């Protein structure tokens, strides 16, 4: 049994014995885990009269109900269910007794409240278990004190404390008041994995009932007495800035209260790493209703002028760097021309093993292929928005944010208020995918509220959201592989770059599996803002690397799975180099599981198969994807997915997320594309930006998890990047054509 020191995160366990008021009778559903046929039986359970707060994560009611806080913001990844499940399991209670709340934003109590990088469960695993386990220990201690018996003789089962020899027993509720007074133990024992009763057992999402009945959950639903609606007008193109505006025709429009300019980031301030923002000068329009403000926004007369090259200081997590933004009105054609040129020149060497140049020269066969992808917009279904009520002394904000702590720093600088005077409520997010780590819209809302001297809700139109993006960059990669006369892979070369960042991971597979290896990179600066997009960089590299390896396997006359497994065997037994950042066994493990579950050698009649596997965000995923041809149209019929992300907390929800990642991957690879002309995005809404729809989604998806007792790693991102590779490989089998440039199907007819 693992013992664990409670020192880390101890602050969160310091008790606050002030009791929350009780006595309310709330209709709350115990639907968390029950079958839908029980929906009728919406239980009305009396709420406790008193709550005893054991630590920041949980409080126990005098009737046995337990409220558990979810520390991280929710954007559809299911943390509001899975995180409390971890606490509840270690506390040893039944899930039906759990109420879940979104914790307030409070770094002192809850540490790093961040949704992103597939790090939520991984980083919280120990702390959440500790929160449950320390509380359970304190309840045991309280019982031991009451019954005058050694604490070691007390056992718990599903919320009941019992002492065998004396026959005494009590529910948690009876001991909660006393437990809340006790010292937090220095060390606690955690459950063994085999004793988990909640972790690993699928529970329904605790918010589904609210979602399907239309309850206000999202930032855009936020209601506040007297709040005005605000919208912001930004330059129509990257490379332009606000010169002047004339609001005379707008001010008199119905419902309009105020029109003014705001400046989100001042020139002299050091920007945070997530303060990405091309459009810092905006015209704010404030009014009484969304429709009235929308109409006024269309009428605003503004003049724009070209930017000049400019620099700003950025705090890159402790290191101050100078960033240069180039002037110019960029176009996609220009980007591709520049990328092709960069790809033809030597790049910056990121890793080199052996003597790749010589081996390429003497190879029996050399395969060289180039790949590219366009910019992508995140297109969260809930457009960017934020509520703010800023006064001279404090600020109250609410809305969708992946990283409230990062927003708080910038808010504090821009509002001139200390952090403790800024209160940020984390609402449910209508998708995030990386986009909501960049909080400029929260800063804008705050500045608008301050100037308007009113609570406001800033709402982006879809067009604002798509044209004021923090996009997935456009990338390019060239791969070369050398085979000897026995079809062994003897040298491998990758050169990758992008506008404006390189996507290269020099130490990932097949690094470590090939004696002669070269990885190079390059970058082209741009004024188009880019940022994290579900599995940054991996979302390009996985697909193209796996498509390339498929071609190399074919040239070597080998089965694509066998070919990868041979390389992984090499990387495991006799790795080349020292910095390989994947575990060959686990990567091989998901490939083997996908091979078995898909019945690889025997595909369904008419199905054309592609495979791929990738490691990123600490986890491993492999897909076998089947395409059937419907006349001329390829359709994804079936996807079998295998994932190794360690222990899976909530399996059905985890499958849901993997299914979503696969559909997202197919959608973006087939259709996703944001193009530029003279700095403007050529797509501004869903009539021109093609999103995957129902009839294009895979007909069936099967998700399998490798069973092991490894602490959980990431899940939101890992199944996403490799889909593009499996799709490209299956398309080749179906059509005889290799696809090198995304989107594979280009712009199709848009359905409404």
């Amino acid at each position, binding site marked *: 049994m693992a013992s664990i020191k409670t020192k880390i995160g101890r602050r969160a366990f310091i008790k606050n014995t002030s009791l929350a008021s009780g006595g309310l009778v709330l209709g709350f559903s115990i639907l968390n885990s029950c*079958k*839908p*046929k029980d*929906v*009728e039986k919406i239980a009305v359970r009396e709420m406790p009269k008193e709550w005893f707060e054991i630590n920041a994560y949980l409080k126990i009611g005098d009737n046995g109900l337990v409220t558990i806080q979810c520390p991280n913001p929710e954007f*559809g990844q299911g943390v509001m269910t899975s995180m409390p499940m971890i606490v509840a399991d270690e506390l040893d209670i039944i899930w039906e007794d759990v109420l879940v709340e979104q914790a307030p934003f409070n770094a002192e109590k809850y540490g790093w409240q961040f949704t992103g990088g597939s790090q939520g469960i991984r980083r919280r695993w120990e702390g959440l278990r500790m929160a449950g386990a320390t509380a359970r220990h304190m309840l045991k201690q309280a019982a031991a004190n009451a019954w005058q018996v050694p604490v070691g003789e007390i056992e718990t089962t599903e919320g009941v404390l019992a002492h065998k020899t004396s026959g005494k027993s009590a529910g948690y509720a009876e001991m909660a008041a006393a437990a809340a007074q006790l010292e937090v133990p220095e060390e606690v024992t955690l459950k063994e994995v085999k004793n988990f009763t909640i972790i690993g057992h699928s529970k*329904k*999402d605790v*918010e*589904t*009932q609210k*979602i*399907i*009945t*239309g309850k*206000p959950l*999202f930032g*855009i*639903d936020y*209601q506040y007495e007297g709040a005005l*609606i605000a919208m912001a007008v930004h330059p129509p193109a990257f490379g332009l800035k606000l010169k002047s505006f004339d609001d005379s025709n707008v001010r008199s429009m*119905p419902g309009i209260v105020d029109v003014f300019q705001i400046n989100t980031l001042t020139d002299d301030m050091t920007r945070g790493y997530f303060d990405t923002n091309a459009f810092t000068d905006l015209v704010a329009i404030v009014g009484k*209703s*969304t*429709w*009235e403000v*929308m109409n006024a926004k269309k009428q605003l007369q503004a003049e724009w002028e070209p930017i000049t090259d400019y620099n700003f200081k950025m705090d890159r997590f402790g290191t101050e760097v100078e960033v240069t933004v180039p002037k110019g009105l960029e176009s996609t054609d220009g980007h591709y021309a520049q990328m092709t040129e960069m790809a033809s020149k030597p790049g910056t060497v990121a890793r080199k093993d052996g003597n790749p140049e010589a081996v390429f020269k003497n190879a029996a066969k050399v395969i060289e292929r180039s790949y590219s992808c366009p910019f992508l917009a995140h*297109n*969260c*279904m*809930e457009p960017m928005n934020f509520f703010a009520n800023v006064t001279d002394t404090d600020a109250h904000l609410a809305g969708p944010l992946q990283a409230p702590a990062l927003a708080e720093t910038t808010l504090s600088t821009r509002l001139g208020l200390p952090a403790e005077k800024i209160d940020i409520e984390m609402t*449910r997010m*209508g*998708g*995030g*995918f990386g986009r909501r780590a960049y909080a400029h819209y929260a800063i804008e809302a705050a500045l608008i509220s301050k100037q308007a001297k009113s609570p406001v809700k800033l709402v982006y*139109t*879809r067009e604002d959201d798509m044209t004021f993006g923090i996009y997935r960059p456009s990338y390019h990669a060239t791969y070369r592989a050398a085979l000897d006369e026995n079809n062994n892979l003897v040298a491998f070369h990758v050169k990758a770059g992008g506008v404006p960042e390189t996507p290269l991971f020099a130490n990932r597979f097949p690094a470590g599996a090939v004696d002669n290896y070269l990885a190079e990179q390059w970058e082209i600066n741009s004024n188009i803002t880019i940022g994290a997009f579900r599995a940054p960089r991996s979302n390009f590299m996985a697909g193209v690397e796996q498509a390339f390896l498929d071609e190399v396997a074919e040239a070597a006359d080998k089965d694509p799975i066998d070919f990868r497994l041979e390389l992984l065997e090499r990387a495991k037994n006799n790795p080349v180099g020292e910095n390989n950042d994947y575990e060959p066994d686990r990567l091989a493990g998901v490939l083997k599981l996908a091979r078995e579950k898909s019945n690889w050698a025997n595909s369904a009649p008419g199905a054309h198969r592609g495979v791929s596997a990738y490691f990123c965000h600490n986890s491993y995923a492999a897909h076998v994807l089947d395409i059937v041809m419907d006349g001329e149209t390829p359709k994804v019929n079936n996807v079998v997915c295998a994932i190794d992300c360690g222990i899976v907390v909530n399996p*059905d929800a985890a499958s*849901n*997320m993997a*299914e*979503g990642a*696969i*559909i*997202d991957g197919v959608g973006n690879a087939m259709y996703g594309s944001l193009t530029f002309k003279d700095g403007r995005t050529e797509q501004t*809404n*869903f*009539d021109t930006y093609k999103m*995957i*729809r*129902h*009839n294009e*989604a895979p*007909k*069936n*998806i099967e998700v399998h998890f490798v069973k092991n007792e490894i602490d959980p790693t990431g899940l939101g991102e890992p199944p996403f990047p490799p889909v593009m590779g499996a799709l490209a490989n299956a398309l080749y089998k179906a059509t005889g054509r290799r696809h090198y440039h995304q989107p594979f199907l280009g712009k199709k007819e*848009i*359905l*409404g």
Partner: protein
Amino acid sequence: MATFNLKINGETKEIDVDPSTPMLWVLRDHIKLVGTKYGCGIAQCGACTIHLGDNAVRSCQLPVSAVGEQEITTIEGLSENGDHPVQKAWLEIDVPQCGYCQAGQIMTASALLKRNPHPSDTEIETAMNGNICRCGTYTRIKTAVKTAAES
């Protein structure tokens, strides 16, 4: 500005707005029913789907002046206790991820089942094609629609 008496979820609501105001914003801003979502404003995403009589319509493209006597049902009024067969199926399959698109999906699905209680896979896809789900819950949505059809 003009006054309208609207029948929404079985109640009559009087509102005073510009006649061109789309029902989406009448619901969200004026009646404070925010279950109906804004996604695109141009009838491309389905997030704003409501029922006008028995038909699923995009409320972002429905001016309040065009409603007249017709009954409007929003996600909040689909059932009294969230127990419409489609809602129950959504719960059983645990369809949502972020959940933002789901009110629209449910409104489209429930209108479909009303006029076609046993749709084929293709009929489901065709009916649901106007509803985008960015999180990619399409396979679960289809399973849930079929589950609801069987119930």
